[in-house]
């Protein structure tokens, strides 16, 4: 074999290597974006539900102004949040505000028994569960992507094309314990 031939093969192998690593990084980034929009869909559902909930609670309770204001504030901050960590933070705020709002129904039997309120409560807990799952999916995508980026050759190629590691969507209020699974 002539040296030129060996050189050509070496170049082809290197190009293929760079190409596949680049592709896996690019795919990872797209998946993260998709997963984030999955979270956004559920966050928007919750944001849309809040005014309805506030109206219902207002009808039954007169002295919970501060609580309702907290919820409205948290909702507004979630609506205007940009970036993963900001969204996660204001979502956490809204979760906590809503929790205390739901808790006051204990002192208003009429509210607690109202069909409207029960329906909203059920929908809220459904959204809550869906947000938790959407976040789980997002975080597992981020962790895969970051892992590729942290190890060679991903690190070198990521550097070359300006790929940065992505942030996790962390929520303190409703985090579920991860499970260790061995294959």
């Amino acid at each position, binding site marked *: 074999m002539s040296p030129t031939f060996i050189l050509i093969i070496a170049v082809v192998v290197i190009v293929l290597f760079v190409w596949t690593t680049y592709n896996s990084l690019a795919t990872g980034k797209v998946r993260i974006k998709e997963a984030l929009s999955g979270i956004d869909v559920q966050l928007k559902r919750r944001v849309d539900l809040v005014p309805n909930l506030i109206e219902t609670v207002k009808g039954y309770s007169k002295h919970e102004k501060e609580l309702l204001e907290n919820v409205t504030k948290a909702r507004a901050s979630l609506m205007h949040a940009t970036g993963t960590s900001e969204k996660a933070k204001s979502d956490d705020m809204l979760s906590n505000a809503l929790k205390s709002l739901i808790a006051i129904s204990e002192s208003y039997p009429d509210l607690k028994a109202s069909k409207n309120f029960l329906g909203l409560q059920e929908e809220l807990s459904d959204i809550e569960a*869906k947000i938790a799952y959407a976040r789980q999916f997002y975080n597992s995508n981020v962790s895969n992507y970051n892992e590729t980026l942290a190890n060679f050759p991903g690190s070198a190629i990521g550097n070359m094309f300006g790929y940065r590691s992505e942030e996790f969507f962390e929520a303190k209020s409703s985090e579920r314990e991860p*499970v260790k699974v061995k294959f």
Partner: protein
Amino acid sequence: MNIYSQISANKTKTWLIVILFVLFITTIIFVYGKASGYGLSYAGFGLIISGIIGFASYYYSDKMILGMSKAKQIAKKDNPTLFRIVENLCIGAGIPMPKIYIIDDSAPNAFATGRDPKHSVVCVTTGILEKLDKAELEGVIAHELSHVQNYDIRLMSIVVILVGLVALLADFFMRSLWYGGHRDRNDRGGNAQGIFLLIGIALAILSPIIATLIQLAVSRKREFLADASGALLTRYPEGLASALEKISKDKEPLEVANNATAHLYIANPFKDKISGNWFANLFNTHPPIAERIRILRSM
């Protein structure tokens, strides 16, 4: 083994099964044709027929299986709780929402079928809905969705139809060979008898190969892997573990399950009932439930 290598292995195995099926049927028909003096034209005919069957099983195996199992599709309003569980887990796994089917039978069991995550079906019995609580049902659905995500459903559904068909043929020829031996050979034409004998012997030789194929396709590892990915999805292995415990304690066999579809289900649908078919044990590839529960509880 990670999920991506599992997916590509499943896709390759699916093609392998379809190609082997086409070759097998063509060979059988060629042998039959050769004996009756029409060799090659019969083989061409066989190639077309088996090609069509292979193609159809790729697209319609799920519908055939659902038909065989007498399953009915339900809408969200029929069972909102079940739909919510499936929706949530689909979001967690990042796959589209499958169709949901119900089998009206009090034996608790479940399976998934389809050709890819976009065309998938999760099927549960009314028994499992009654007997399991929410966390347990979540565990079972997560296990089934892992089969969907891994493309296990495509492979397993095609195995049901194609290998099931070959098995049926093998069984038929074996029987005719067996009973034919007791009869007076002069009753029938000696030629036809000879052909049946030939095919029977060929199939008898081939049956270990068929068995290996099934083992290849329906490996026990697949169930363990789906258990593990399911637990990873729900973050609660105990749910599936206690569901499996309940299912294994229930002694009622599922009536609509047959030898071909048995391996699709989350747990052996026959329970203790052993069917007399020689072929049944080949399909009985369910790993022991006790072992699955032990592994889930150690996570």
